[in-house]
């Protein structure tokens, strides 16, 4: 996108809790965030050299994949679930948590014995693709229940045996009588770019790559 003869970078950002982490990352990369801090209810914000799109976390990779946004900040859990073909510029190490299987203590026995004992588990999740691939890669047949929120309710009310969800401190799990049964993978906020922008606008991204490398 061109504005006033200057090529703008379009950055897609996730709304919700993770936006605060995203703003910290932008500050770290010296991308001006003033306009985002005073955003009101706007979903598209522009300053002289950046355009920001605010989207639901699960939708962010799609904006990048289709070239609407050059860059985005998205959780690695979301990237795994959407399986979008995007270029990962760097791991911000922000928003760190784990994608895990959690359930009541009594279900833990089924995870401690032979894998065949997990057959038929009913699993509630916001991440059906990740969950399906995880269990299928181990040859375990499970029943997946795709929920859009309050996943912890499902085992309590008997809808599911356990859940696949992100776990940060574990306090929500604890409050609902659940424990971590298995960890699937660590999760963090990643800076990603569209394949095209990574090829054509690399000179703009290179300092970001370097910044993450130096941060370690």
């Amino acid at each position: 996108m061109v504005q006033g003869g200057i090529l703008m970078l379009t950055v897609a950002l996730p709304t919700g809790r993770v936006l605060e982490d995203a703003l910290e990352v932008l500050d770290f990369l010296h991308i001006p965030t003033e306009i985002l801090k005073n955003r009101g209810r706007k979903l598209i914000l522009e300053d002289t050299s950046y355009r920001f799109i605010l989207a639901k976390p699960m939708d962010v990779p799609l904006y990048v994949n289709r070239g609407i946004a050059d860059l985005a900040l998205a959780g690695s859990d979301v990237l795994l679930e959407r399986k979008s073909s995007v270029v990962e510029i760097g791991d911000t190490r922000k928003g760190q948590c784990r994608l895990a299987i959690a359930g009541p203590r009594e279900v833990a026995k089924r995870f401690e014995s032979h894998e065949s004992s997990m057959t038929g588990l009913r699993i509630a999740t916001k991440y059906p693709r990740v969950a399906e691939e995880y269990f299928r890669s181990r040859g375990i047949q499970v029943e997946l229940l795709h929920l859009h929120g309050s996943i912890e309710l499902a085992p309590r009310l008997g809808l599911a045996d356990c859940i696949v969800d992100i776990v940060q401190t574990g306090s929500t799990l604890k409050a609902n009588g659940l424990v971590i049964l298995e960890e699937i993978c660590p999760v963090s906020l990643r800076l990603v770019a569209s394949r095209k922008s990574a090829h054509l606008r690399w000179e703009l991204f290179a300092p970001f790559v370097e910044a993450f490398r130096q941060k370690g």
Partner: protein
Amino acid sequence: MSRIPQGCRTLGGDWAEGINRCRESFFTTFSSRGYMSFLPSGLQLMESVWEKYPSSFRNRLVALNSPHAEPCVLMGDPTLAALAYMSAHHAPHERPLRLCYAQKVYRKGESSEDPFETYQVGAELLGWNGHGAEVEMLSLIMESFEKLSMPLPTIVLGDVQILKHLCSALSPEEEKSILEALSNLSYGEYYRRVEHLSPQNGTAAFLEALPRLKGGPEVLEKARGLCPELPLEDIREITMALKELGYGKNVRLDLSLFREIGYYSGPVFDMYLSGEGRSLGGGGRYDGLLSQYGMMGQALGFNLDLERMARHARNSSNSETVMIWGGGTSSPQALGYARELIRLGKRTEMSWHEHAEASRELARIRRYRWWLDGKTGQLHSLSSEKIPPLAREEWYKGEFSC
């Protein structure tokens, strides 16, 4: 309404028109330079393709049994069919061989958003050794876009020989680890893995710099400075030739551009249209595959997504069409007008409605700009009432614009 299978599409209207225009442009351009049309079977025997594709591609194919109980896959990529055809139907002295095709292909998408069925246009060129083959193919692709009056795509050019050369200094485990990070498009992971390498001959410094080697021809000098033995001649010659042909602004180099190393063997490319984040398609040199068909030498191919291309093609087919009302005259007379208009380079549609006004209304619905009264031979503008009807003697000279 009957459903169609998930991931498939039935296309019509402007989109289908656009696809046809794109297909015609490619076929006209390629066939005028000796590329023969090729219509491969929609099914391929599994035994013919399974071992030849890289696993990342193989796992996306759709397997099924033919009515004769032979294990098959739906056509996922016409390249193997083209090679099999050329090896069986042409003697070595007939090379170079050129084929072009437009074909529906079926494979599971790389991401959840990708369709399962796509319509592709592509070409294969066998037996012309050297970078001239890439220059020919890439320039013909650009010519095809020019004929469509479309903004030219950006060609991102790389060469898997560069990665092969660098990986030769690594252990098999290290090579696998590095290539995996590149194929996953994860620079964060790539750098983490490069930091753990123990390569010789200064390869570490080059691997560290590799992702940054993107841009214009100057990146070749930078690469040469870092590693003088790198095989950069092909990519340099292709870049220079495309520049000479007037496409310099549309070429971008990316020395870390990754395509399956076991499948591709030399220069590779991806193409991007303005406003699209995904690659429209691409191709490259695949000499190793050729040897599996008992043929030696160089092979090169590409394919592009016709459906996505058509979304960008200017669609003016409706405004270029003249509706001819034959309701008030004999069919031969009306069809004769159609023949004359087609000779003038126009498109026509016959309307046999009983009433002239109903025919004109249909032309307006179709967004046509001209309507011809077969009874009088007069051509009427539908876009402006100020333009008086043109008599046959006037429009016959082609002095009206669609």
